[in-house]
């Protein structure tokens, strides 16, 4: 099976650089799986789980926003914040949910009459809670 070059970078470090067979991306408009010879696409990410399948198995990363550039030969994911799945402990996850909640609260206050930003923040929060379901952690209420 043809391989594609996978890069995962966040502003603070490079998390992964390897040959992968497929990459599952939590796109803003829905999940997608990129394999070799995918049509060139640029998509924004929603917070979610990004899975890379390669020769030696698969790796999962928790990403929160950013964007991905897909070409026929490779996938570059530029995540705002990204952590290997194993590094996301209950503690880290709680913090992430907490941040999303604060952002939601702030959006509700500042944009009382504009639904846009409030909806975005609400979606961010629900995405965060959904991540917990995927990795077996629960969000505190």
């Amino acid at each position: 099976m043809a391989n594609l070059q996978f890069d995962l970078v966040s502003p603070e470090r490079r998390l992964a650089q390897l040959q992968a067979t497929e990459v599952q991306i939590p796109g803003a408009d829905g999940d997608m799986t990129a394999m070799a010879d995918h049509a060139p696409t640029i998509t924004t990410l929603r917070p979610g789980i990004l899975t890379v399948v390669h020769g030696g198995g698969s790796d999962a990363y928790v990403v929160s926003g950013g964007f991905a550039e897909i070409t026929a030969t490779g996938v570059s994911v530029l995540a705002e914040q990204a952590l290997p799945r194993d590094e996301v402990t209950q503690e880290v996850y709680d913090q992430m949910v907490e941040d999303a909640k604060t952002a939601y609260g702030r959006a509700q206050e500042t944009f009382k009459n504009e639904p846009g930003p409030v909806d975005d923040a609400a979606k961010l929060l629900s995405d965060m809670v959904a991540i917990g379901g995927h990795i077996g952690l629960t969000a505190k209420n």
Partner: protein
Amino acid sequence: MPSLKDLKNRIETVKSTRKITKAMQMVAAAKLRRAQDAAEASRPYTERFNAVMGGLAASVGGSDSAPKLLSGTGSDQVQLLIVMTAERGLCGGFNGNIAKLAKAHAQKLLADGKTVKIITVGKKGRDAMKRDLGDHFVGHVDLTEVKRVGYADAQGIAKDILGRFDAEEFDVATIFFARFENVVTQHPTAQQIIPAKFEQEDDAEATLYDYEPSEEEILADLLPRGVATAIFSALLENAASEQGARMSAMDNATRNAGEMIDKLTIQYNRSRQAVITNELIEIISGAEAL
């Protein structure tokens, strides 16, 4: 002519000064390595980001619907200068050089009849510019408590700036920082971040991308991030430059202190010898007189 005791004290003082500058130099060297690593780690992100943005900007930039962050407000009357310096001194000309560049830039804009607003990041730059341009300050970001600059710090600054942009407080924003070349050289640099400018790679073959969601939406989402990214990489460059500048400044100071100790020691030994000779002459002439 200082007495022997004075000289001895002076030598002790300079010696302890040398110890301090030596320690500072070594601390700066260790911090420099960390700062350089951080700057290097952020480079892949910045490069990819700018490449994607370059392509996007080229395809959307020309149209009327282009976001203001890219196309500008159509005016350049109100200029915002973001001057990034260190929180601490004792790093040679580092803070002074950035402040000097920003000052020259501000003076030129003022001479052209523009309105200048200044946001300072880092205490030292604020102090350096207060006297001449204190009236133009509109904000200050304090990073004293921050040990290692993270992306969150850059995001905070970017949010502040974008908020001001949305409130139409300025038309053009420029950041000032020192680009790290090597330990001895750091270049004070001015970089315009709003409206955003991306370098185009002419020879790169333009790939036609599918955009999901639409091109405009992605651009609107990414441009604010571009501001944060530019600020983040400037902060990292600055951190590395500061430590580099401090390292070479402290190296010089240590060397100067060493030279001074040698000079003082010679002076001390000569005076001591003079005292001994004097005493001998007194004894001998006393013996002869008998």
